[in-house]
């Protein structure tokens, strides 16, 4: 299928979607609670497991 749209022009439904997201694009961002869980499960827990496994 050949795309005949002029450069820069989005299909109408995509245009509406992009507009809707642009209106509030920070709404879905990581929060402090997200960072807490990421640090807990991705940094603190692995560090504790590594120390436990090495020294036990």
């Amino acid at each position: 299928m050949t795309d005949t749209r002029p450069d820069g022009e989005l299909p109408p439904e995509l245009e509406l979607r992009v507009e809707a997201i642009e209106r509030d694009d920070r709404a879905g961002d990581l929060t402090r609670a997200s960072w807490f869980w990421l640090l807990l499960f991705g940094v603190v827990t692995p560090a504790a497991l590594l120390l436990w496994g090495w020294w036990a």
Partner: protein
Amino acid sequence: MVGLSAEADKSAWPLLPSERNWGAWRLGIALGTAAAATWCYIIGEFAGYYLNFFQASTALTAGCMIGMLLAFLAAGPICARFGIDSIASTKPQFGARGWVIPAAMQLISIVGWNSLLLIFGAKSATQLMITLGVMPAGMGARELVPASTLIVCALIYLTLLRGATGVTKMSNILVAHVPIGCWMLYLLITRRWPELRLAQPVLAGPDKLWNYTTGVEIGITATMSWWPYIGAMIRMAPNARTVVVPVMLGMGAATALLSLIGIAGILVLKSSDPSEWLRSVGGPTYAIIALVFVSAANFGTAITGIYSSAIGLRNFAAVERMSWSTLLLITIAPVALVGALIPELFFARFGAFLAFLGVAFAPLCGIQIADYFLLRRRVIDIRAIYGRDPAKPYRSIGGFNPAALLALGLGCAIYLKLLNPLTYASSGPYRFLTASLPAATCAAGCYLIVTRLIGTRSADS
């Protein structure tokens, strides 16, 4: 106001918050079902070659959680924020045309691994049918595996005709195999604990730190290679806050937990595959349960993989408007052909290629993290991700960002210099740093430096 589109989850376009209706539990179940497959036993088996049960468990779990963190930080924030998939999230780094490189990595990786999983699953299903007496015992894998693969591919196709709804409906059923896996682990630990406690890894070297680091590296590589999958799943949730715990526990911890089956199996029974050892532990009934478990686990992963791959393909203009059923056929066809025509050849030859391809995900994650958090400081132009205007951001140089390409190449070279993923021959500071973490860090550093030097960032924004 944009209305709800029934086809939104079958396109690569950004999903609206109102269409992203997967809560934390639903997402966790879908991710857990995707994560639990035959490869968990293989991951555990490799760790069990170098470490005893306790150390392999801690090292592998730590590695899985670290790898999951990096894979999530790479694609997760963009995918969850804008409702887009992993491939679309690479356009800011790789350029308006350069994204085809991660897209090719995703396609080959998912199709390759799912071919392996489906062949594994077909073999288990064949064995199950023979055990149940549905098929005659005289029939061999040569005749039955191609037929089983085609049947499984047909089931996946029918399931995915409903898009993400098909994924979640099937996940709700197949997630039962995760507690079954925990039961199998409990069974092995309780019945063989004295042997398991004393079992020594067969390939452990004299350097204890090297052995331990290798356990961590196996975990990091395993969960970092979830990168191609997570975008298509987490974009179904309304925001990043909802997805963090399901990703870290549903995918990262579930992979680690089920890998313990492989560690225990290889240390005590010299086989990581529960469908092989459960018969000796619990008799024929347990063997049937294990075979059902393995078949269901691989089926669930393959469904998620094919769905993610189809969504990734949607980013190509040529298939942007193609019907979902046709796109699914195109995505499943390579898997079906491999399983039907050359299953044994594929097993023998392609696994090595996939192992080398896997090393590219570490630098890819490093590049994305550096770009999103350090270079762009979380400012993403969602319009430019989908626009084709040559004057718009993310065009870079001819559509390709040389900084990302150089960084990806350097990261892969550093990984391979530190560790051969097939032979596990290592060099340099591998025993202190692993191979994935230096590869990701150097790729991130290279990306930042080259971008500053050639001014790509200023040129594209």
